[in-house]
Protein backbone atom coordinates (compact mmCIF):
# COMPACT_ATOMS: atom_id res chain seq x y z
CA UNK A 1 0.00 0.00 0.00
CA UNK A 2 1.35 3.37 -0.99
CA UNK A 3 2.06 5.84 1.83
CA UNK A 4 1.12 8.73 -0.45
CA UNK A 5 -2.18 8.35 -2.30
CA UNK A 6 -2.62 8.72 -6.04
CA UNK A 7 -5.69 10.64 -7.21
CA UNK A 8 -8.48 9.59 -9.53
CA UNK A 9 -9.44 11.52 -12.67
CA UNK A 10 -12.08 13.57 -10.83
CA UNK A 11 -9.57 14.76 -8.23
CA UNK A 12 -7.10 15.78 -10.96
CA UNK A 13 -9.86 17.64 -12.78
CA UNK A 14 -10.99 19.42 -9.60
CA UNK A 15 -7.50 20.66 -8.74
CA UNK A 16 -6.24 21.57 -12.21
CA UNK A 17 -9.66 23.04 -12.98
CA UNK A 18 -8.62 25.91 -10.71
CA UNK A 19 -5.90 26.73 -13.22
CA UNK A 20 -7.34 25.75 -16.59
CA UNK A 21 -10.72 26.37 -18.21
CA UNK A 22 -12.40 23.62 -20.20
CA UNK A 23 -10.33 20.83 -18.68
CA UNK A 24 -11.18 17.15 -19.23
CA UNK A 25 -9.37 14.28 -17.52
CA UNK A 26 -9.67 10.55 -18.16
CA UNK A 27 -7.68 7.43 -17.36
CA UNK A 28 -5.03 6.59 -19.95
CA UNK A 29 -2.46 3.88 -20.75
CA UNK A 30 0.84 3.96 -18.84
CA UNK A 31 3.16 6.77 -19.88
CA UNK A 32 6.72 5.75 -20.75
CA UNK A 33 9.05 7.21 -18.14
CA UNK A 34 12.22 5.45 -19.28
CA UNK A 35 15.37 7.59 -19.73
CA UNK A 36 15.01 7.78 -23.51
CA UNK A 37 11.32 8.70 -23.51
CA UNK A 38 12.03 12.45 -23.55
CA UNK A 39 9.18 12.97 -21.10
CA UNK A 40 9.31 15.31 -18.10
CA UNK A 41 9.56 14.06 -14.53
CA UNK A 42 8.84 16.12 -11.43
CA UNK A 43 10.41 14.69 -8.29
CA UNK A 44 8.71 15.21 -4.91
CA UNK A 45 10.59 14.70 -1.68
CA UNK A 46 9.56 14.06 1.90
CA UNK A 47 10.71 16.34 4.71
CA UNK A 48 13.91 14.26 5.04
CA UNK A 49 14.76 14.93 1.36
CA UNK A 50 14.07 11.37 0.12
CA UNK A 51 12.14 11.11 -3.18
CA UNK A 52 8.66 9.74 -2.47
CA UNK A 53 6.62 10.66 -5.53
CA UNK A 54 6.91 11.53 -9.20
CA UNK A 55 4.70 13.31 -11.67
CA UNK A 56 5.50 12.50 -15.27
CA UNK A 57 4.15 14.22 -18.36
CA UNK A 58 4.77 14.15 -22.07
CA UNK A 59 5.70 17.14 -24.22
CA UNK A 60 2.01 17.64 -25.07
CA UNK A 61 0.96 18.22 -21.46
CA UNK A 62 4.12 20.22 -20.70
CA UNK A 63 3.59 22.58 -23.65
CA UNK A 64 -0.18 22.87 -23.23
CA UNK A 65 -0.05 23.53 -19.49
CA UNK A 66 3.02 25.74 -19.88
CA UNK A 67 1.22 27.86 -22.46
CA UNK A 68 -2.28 27.83 -20.96
CA UNK A 69 -1.21 28.99 -17.49
CA UNK A 70 -0.05 32.32 -18.94
CA UNK A 71 -2.71 32.27 -21.66
CA UNK A 72 -0.09 32.08 -24.41
CA UNK A 73 -1.68 31.25 -27.79
CA UNK A 74 -2.35 27.54 -28.49
CA UNK A 75 -0.01 27.78 -31.48
CA UNK A 76 2.87 28.49 -29.09
CA UNK A 77 2.17 25.12 -27.46
CA UNK A 78 1.96 23.41 -30.86
CA UNK A 79 5.31 24.96 -31.88
CA UNK A 80 6.90 23.69 -28.67
CA UNK A 81 5.62 20.17 -29.31
CA UNK A 82 6.91 20.29 -32.89
CA UNK A 83 10.36 21.57 -31.89
CA UNK A 84 10.40 19.40 -28.71
CA UNK A 85 11.52 22.48 -26.83
CA UNK A 86 9.69 24.45 -24.14
CA UNK A 87 10.19 28.20 -23.97
CA UNK A 88 11.59 29.52 -20.65
CA UNK A 89 8.08 30.79 -19.72
CA UNK A 90 6.58 27.34 -20.41
CA UNK A 91 9.31 25.74 -18.30
CA UNK A 92 8.55 28.08 -15.39
CA UNK A 93 4.83 27.43 -15.75
CA UNK A 94 5.31 23.66 -15.92
CA UNK A 95 7.16 23.87 -12.60
CA UNK A 96 4.24 25.89 -11.17
CA UNK A 97 1.75 23.24 -12.31
CA UNK A 98 3.92 20.39 -10.99
CA UNK A 99 4.19 22.24 -7.68
CA UNK A 100 0.40 22.39 -7.43
CA UNK A 101 0.21 18.67 -8.33
CA UNK A 102 1.94 17.88 -5.01
CA UNK A 103 -1.47 18.33 -3.40
CA UNK A 104 -2.82 15.39 -5.39
CA UNK A 105 -0.53 13.06 -3.48
CA UNK A 106 -1.21 14.30 0.04
CA UNK A 107 -4.20 13.57 2.21
CA UNK A 108 -4.90 13.88 5.89
CA UNK A 109 -2.61 11.41 7.57
CA UNK A 110 -0.22 10.98 4.62
CA UNK A 111 3.27 12.39 4.97
CA UNK A 112 4.13 15.89 3.73
CA UNK A 113 5.89 16.14 0.39
CA UNK A 114 7.16 19.01 -1.70
CA UNK A 115 8.32 19.52 -5.28
CA UNK A 116 12.08 19.26 -5.57
CA UNK A 117 12.98 19.55 -9.25
CA UNK A 118 11.59 18.93 -12.73
CA UNK A 119 13.84 16.91 -15.05
CA UNK A 120 13.72 15.56 -18.58
CA UNK A 121 13.74 11.77 -18.38
CA UNK A 122 17.37 11.25 -19.34
CA UNK A 123 18.59 13.57 -16.54
CA UNK A 124 16.60 11.90 -13.77
CA UNK A 125 18.87 11.33 -10.72
CA UNK A 126 19.47 7.70 -9.70
CA UNK A 127 17.60 8.03 -6.39
CA UNK A 128 14.47 9.26 -8.18
CA UNK A 129 14.78 6.54 -10.85
CA UNK A 130 15.00 3.93 -8.09
CA UNK A 131 11.93 5.43 -6.46
CA UNK A 132 10.05 5.18 -9.78
CA UNK A 133 10.91 1.47 -10.01
CA UNK A 134 9.72 0.90 -6.44
CA UNK A 135 6.49 2.90 -6.81
CA UNK A 136 3.46 1.12 -5.36
CA UNK A 137 0.89 3.69 -6.41
CA UNK A 138 0.40 4.80 -10.00
CA UNK A 139 -2.28 6.59 -12.01
CA UNK A 140 -2.08 7.66 -15.66
CA UNK A 141 -4.31 10.29 -17.24
CA UNK A 142 -5.06 12.01 -20.50
CA UNK A 143 -5.57 15.68 -19.71
CA UNK A 144 -7.21 17.93 -22.30
CA UNK A 145 -6.89 21.66 -21.72
CA UNK A 146 -9.66 23.22 -23.81
CA UNK A 147 -8.39 24.68 -27.07
CA UNK A 148 -4.79 23.67 -26.26
CA UNK A 149 -5.47 19.96 -26.68
CA UNK A 150 -4.51 16.73 -24.95
CA UNK A 151 -1.42 15.57 -23.11
CA UNK A 152 -0.40 12.78 -20.75
CA UNK A 153 0.12 13.12 -17.01
CA UNK A 154 1.06 10.29 -14.64
CA UNK A 155 1.52 10.22 -10.89
CA UNK A 156 3.63 7.65 -9.05
CA UNK A 157 4.09 7.28 -5.31
CA UNK A 158 5.73 5.00 -2.77
Amino acid at each position, binding site marked *: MSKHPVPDAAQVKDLLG*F*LFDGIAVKAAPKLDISPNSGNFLAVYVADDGAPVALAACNMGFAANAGAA*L*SMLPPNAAKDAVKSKLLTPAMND*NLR*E*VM*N*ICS*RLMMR*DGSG*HLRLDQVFQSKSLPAAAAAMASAATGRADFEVTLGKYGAGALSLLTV
Partner: protein
Amino acid sequence: MIVDDSLAMRMIVRKTLRLAGFDGHEFSEAEDGAKALAAITVAPPDLVLSDWNMPNMTGIELLENLTKAGLKVKFGFVTTEATAEMRSRAASAGARFLISKPFTAESFKEALEPHLK
Protein backbone atom coordinates in the same frame (compact mmCIF):
# COMPACT_ATOMS: atom_id res chain seq x y z
CA MET B 1 -4.50 41.73 -2.25
CA ILE B 2 -3.17 38.22 -2.91
CA VAL B 3 0.53 37.78 -2.12
CA ASP B 4 2.22 34.58 -3.29
CA ASP B 5 5.36 33.84 -5.29
CA SER B 6 3.53 31.15 -7.27
CA LEU B 7 1.38 32.33 -10.18
CA ALA B 8 -0.59 29.08 -10.01
CA MET B 9 -1.30 29.55 -6.29
CA ARG B 10 -2.45 33.14 -6.88
CA MET B 11 -4.83 31.81 -9.54
CA ILE B 12 -6.14 29.16 -7.13
CA VAL B 13 -6.65 31.68 -4.32
CA ARG B 14 -8.41 34.11 -6.69
CA LYS B 15 -10.74 31.39 -7.97
CA THR B 16 -11.43 30.11 -4.45
CA LEU B 17 -12.33 33.67 -3.38
CA ARG B 18 -14.84 33.84 -6.24
CA LEU B 19 -16.31 30.47 -5.27
CA ALA B 20 -16.56 31.67 -1.67
CA GLY B 21 -18.75 34.56 -2.84
CA PHE B 22 -16.22 37.41 -2.78
CA ASP B 23 -16.46 38.11 -6.51
CA GLY B 24 -17.76 41.61 -5.82
CA HIS B 25 -14.28 42.64 -4.68
CA GLU B 26 -11.35 43.79 -6.77
CA PHE B 27 -8.24 41.63 -6.42
CA SER B 28 -4.68 42.84 -6.78
CA GLU B 29 -1.62 40.59 -6.67
CA ALA B 30 2.00 40.73 -5.58
CA GLU B 31 4.64 38.04 -6.02
CA ASP B 32 6.57 38.55 -2.79
CA GLY B 33 6.47 40.47 0.47
CA ALA B 34 8.74 43.27 -0.74
CA LYS B 35 6.56 44.03 -3.77
CA ALA B 36 3.44 43.81 -1.62
CA LEU B 37 4.90 46.23 0.94
CA ALA B 38 5.69 48.76 -1.81
CA ALA B 39 2.19 48.47 -3.29
CA ILE B 40 0.41 48.61 0.09
CA THR B 41 2.35 51.74 1.05
CA VAL B 42 0.92 53.49 -2.02
CA ALA B 43 -2.62 52.08 -1.89
CA PRO B 44 -3.63 49.94 1.10
CA PRO B 45 -6.14 47.19 0.18
CA ASP B 46 -9.13 46.16 2.36
CA LEU B 47 -7.38 42.91 3.23
CA VAL B 48 -4.09 41.13 2.50
CA LEU B 49 -4.11 37.38 1.92
CA SER B 50 -0.51 36.22 2.01
CA ASP B 51 1.53 33.06 1.64
CA TRP B 52 4.07 32.39 4.41
CA ASN B 53 7.25 31.33 2.55
CA MET B 54 8.33 33.67 -0.23
CA PRO B 55 11.67 34.96 -1.56
CA ASN B 56 12.86 38.54 -0.79
CA MET B 57 10.40 39.07 2.06
CA THR B 58 8.30 36.35 3.70
CA GLY B 59 4.67 36.81 4.64
CA ILE B 60 5.37 37.21 8.35
CA GLU B 61 8.12 39.75 7.60
CA LEU B 62 5.64 41.64 5.45
CA LEU B 63 3.15 41.77 8.31
CA GLU B 64 5.84 42.85 10.78
CA ASN B 65 7.07 45.55 8.37
CA LEU B 66 3.54 46.85 7.85
CA THR B 67 3.12 47.17 11.62
CA LYS B 68 6.53 48.88 11.96
CA ALA B 69 5.54 51.36 9.23
CA GLY B 70 2.29 52.09 11.06
CA LEU B 71 0.18 50.73 8.20
CA LYS B 72 -2.91 49.13 9.69
CA VAL B 73 -4.17 46.63 7.10
CA LYS B 74 -6.29 43.56 7.80
CA PHE B 75 -3.98 40.61 7.20
CA GLY B 76 -4.41 36.83 6.97
CA PHE B 77 -2.27 33.92 5.85
CA VAL B 78 -3.00 31.18 3.31
CA THR B 79 -0.39 28.46 3.52
CA THR B 80 -0.26 24.74 2.77
CA GLU B 81 1.57 23.83 5.97
CA ALA B 82 0.95 25.50 9.33
CA THR B 83 2.70 24.55 12.56
CA ALA B 84 1.53 25.62 16.02
CA GLU B 85 4.58 27.90 16.16
CA MET B 86 3.56 29.60 12.89
CA ARG B 87 0.01 30.10 14.15
CA SER B 88 1.27 31.61 17.38
CA ARG B 89 3.75 33.93 15.59
CA ALA B 90 1.04 35.01 13.12
CA ALA B 91 -1.41 35.82 15.92
CA SER B 92 1.23 37.74 17.92
CA ALA B 93 2.08 39.81 14.84
CA GLY B 94 -1.59 40.73 14.44
CA ALA B 95 -2.80 38.33 11.72
CA ARG B 96 -6.59 37.96 11.72
CA PHE B 97 -6.54 34.33 10.54
CA LEU B 98 -4.39 31.58 9.06
CA ILE B 99 -5.97 29.27 6.49
CA SER B 100 -4.19 25.96 5.94
CA LYS B 101 -5.83 22.65 5.07
CA PRO B 102 -8.66 22.30 4.19
CA PHE B 103 -8.17 24.80 1.43
CA THR B 104 -11.77 25.19 0.27
CA ALA B 105 -14.32 27.87 -0.57
CA GLU B 106 -15.96 27.10 2.80
CA SER B 107 -12.75 27.59 4.79
CA PHE B 108 -12.11 30.86 2.90
CA LYS B 109 -15.64 32.07 3.56
CA GLU B 110 -15.47 31.25 7.26
CA ALA B 111 -12.08 32.99 7.67
CA LEU B 112 -12.70 36.08 5.55
CA GLU B 113 -16.36 36.92 6.05
CA PRO B 114 -15.94 38.58 9.46
CA HIS B 115 -13.31 40.91 7.95
CA LEU B 116 -14.82 41.79 4.56
CA LYS B 117 -18.11 43.65 4.68
